[in-house]
């Protein structure tokens, strides 16, 4: 009996180990290819679990689709196979460094990611020490690229996004007082809260700023605070998991004031939570569905063809802007590798600043800091009856 129990326990442990390992493994097969001559490795540094898991998975989908569209790259007449190595940073600043180290051990020519600024900032030094360039896809905090030569980014920045949303609140929603809520100690949330507040106060909007601790799931009191403070809009730059809870609880409390949110909320998870409810949700994002029908048809077919992809996209084939950004990131990386004419990380890093490309999300070119020049964002609103995002406007900072 004792032996049996010991055996059972050991079985449990082994199972736990499998459970830990599996999600972090890359989706594609092949193992030792990294070191061989005709394979080029692109590292993917994304959250596949944790608070940002849903968004990270959608971003990786874009890269995987791009990889399936264009699996090879030609340098000096030699064709290299491109292999994506995916590491899960678990949406956590303390796990980010070990995920980055894992990636570096695979010898990537360039690293793409991450969704979420905090993890990108945390892993930045690891990439710098290894001399590997990193291309941030949808991390929007200025600190990611500031003061370094190896981190580049495709997304617009938080000061820009904060201003866009503040302008939108002023121009379209005629807001006079906005309730701002974000997660404590999260670089992305707190950065945006700060930039939004600056821009909003400059535009004559009063801001009430509050933060919630990690793992909080009770937003009722925060929403009551918003109502009692006499706010006429809510600005919530949170990750998707919290966003879903905020949406649900706002609906339960009968709060109808419009909710403004940045790119993280542009996800079908939010639509699912808002479906059938009386809510007005506006998000600023990188891409509005319908921008490139041919590309969309292709990626939707690809997503629908594979049950895992479909699950990773949240169960339907609705396209998130981060997926499109992931797609563009892959091709920007390929373009940089072509320009470098080499698979060495140092050469790719040198070639990145002058790399230009016309992506699905618009023309891509880097400025002196390493950020893609973008001057406008798309504003979309959640259509709670049809479960789709409706395009509202293209908003700039002026």
């Amino acid at each position, binding site marked *: 009996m004792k032996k049996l129990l010991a055996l*059972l326990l050991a079985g449990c442990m082994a199972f736990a180990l499998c459970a830990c390992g599996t999600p972090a493994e890359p989706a594609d097969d092949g193992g030792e290819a990294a070191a061989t001559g005709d394979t080029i490795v692109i590292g993917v540094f994304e959250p596949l679990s944790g608070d940002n898991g849903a968004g990270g998975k959608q971003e990786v989908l874009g890269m995987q689709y791009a990889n399936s569209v264009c699996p090879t790259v030609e340098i000096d007449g030699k064709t290299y196979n491109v292999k994506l190595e995916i590491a899960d940073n678990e949406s956590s600043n303390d796990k980010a460094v070990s995920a980055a180290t894992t990636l570096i051990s695979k010898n990537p020519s360039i690293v793409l990611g991450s969704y979420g600024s905090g993890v990108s900032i945390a892993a930045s030094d690891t990439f710098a020490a290894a001399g590997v360039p990193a291309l941030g896809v949808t991390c929007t905090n200025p600190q990611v690229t500031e003061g370094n030569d190896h981190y580049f980014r495709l997304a617009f920045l938080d000061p820009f996004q904060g201003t866009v949303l503040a302008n939108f609140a002023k121009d379209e929603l005629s807001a006079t007082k906005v309730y701002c809520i974000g997660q404590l100690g999260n670089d992305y949330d707190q950065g945006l809260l700060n930039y939004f507040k600056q821009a909003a106060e400059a535009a004559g909007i009063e801001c009430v700023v509050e933060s919630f601790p990690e793992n909080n799931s009770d937003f009722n009191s925060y929403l009551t605070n918003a109502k009692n403070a006499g706010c006429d809009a809510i600005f919530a730059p949170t990750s998707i998991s919290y966003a879903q809870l905020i949406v649900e*609880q706002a609906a339960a409390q009968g709060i109808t004031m419009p909710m403004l949110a940045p790119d993280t909320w542009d996800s079908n998870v939010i639509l699912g939570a808002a479906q059938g409810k009386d809510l007005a949700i506006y998000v600023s994002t990188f891409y509005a569905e319908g921008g490139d029908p041919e590309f969309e048809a292709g990626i939707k077919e690809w997503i629908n063809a594979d049950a895992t992809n479909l699950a990773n996209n949240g169960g339907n084939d609705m396209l998130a802007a981060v997926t499109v950004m992931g797609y563009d990131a892959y091709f920007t990386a390929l373009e940089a590798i072509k320009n470098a004419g080499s698979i060495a990380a140092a050469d790719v890093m040198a070639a990145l600043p002058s790399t230009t490309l016309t992506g699905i999300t618009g023309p891509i070119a880097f400025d002196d800091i390493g950020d893609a020049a973008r001057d406008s964002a798309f504003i979309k609103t959640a259509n709670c009856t049809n479960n789709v995002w409706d395009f509202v406007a293209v908003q700039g900072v002026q």
Partner: protein
Amino acid sequence: MSEFISANLPYLLAGISVGGQYALIAIGYTMVYGILRLINFAHGDVFMVAGLVMVTAAASLPIGVAIVLVIVATIILGVVIERVAYKPLRSAPRMSVMISAIGVSYLLQNCALYFTGGLPQIYPTIPFLSNSVTIGGATTKMVTVVTPILTLILIFALVTLIQKTKIGMAMRAVSKDFETSELMGIKINKVISMTFVIGCFLAAVGSMLYFTNYPSVIPTSGAMPGLKAFVAAVFGGIGSVPGAVIGAFIIGICENIIKGLGLTVFSDAFTFVLLIVILLVKPTGIFGEKATDKV
């Protein structure tokens, strides 16, 4: 005056509701402690697993069947954990059992991570509980009203069970003196299993109420409610059922009042400051010393 009430009632409602949910979890902690002198750190994760079972079950079964299935599955999980992870260590030092409990906690979290793929799972809508209701100008979900009532009914039933039935008497005896009650012919294993059955049943009910209010389940969903319920159990005097319930309501209500005062950043800190203060001032908790209240 009525304006004051309608402005502040939502905080109180949220507090009572979340307090009731903490109470249902806290009973699991306090009863297991009362009998085994073990802080069952895996209890919060059992609560989370109950949420995940509901998500899976409701996807393919009618909601009534799913509810029953969740309760049965959670009870089985609790009893299996006890048999596999705690029972073989019964004669081992108490610290070993506690470390085993921490191991089970992480095991459950990682299994959940594997099954969910790290994505938040949307909790299904339970009819009636999810309906909107307006009380004194404050709109909320029906579950907010149901939780305290259901909690009190369940606790009344539990206290009756402990005070009036044979198994309850056995529980009280075991909690007083483990060895002696064994010598007196009480079947220890049966009593311990029963404790886990009750604790997990209440955790399953608590999870349905909690996740109806906050409908997203992630692998760490059980961590915070579990910790707060644990603090509630210590606050009320660990080992005491009424103490755990009162402690849970106090924590739930204070937490929300603090958020309402604009000190949102400190809402969690309050709970743990309370834990430290109670351990310094009255280590046995508010009901800890009255031996008759022990399970």
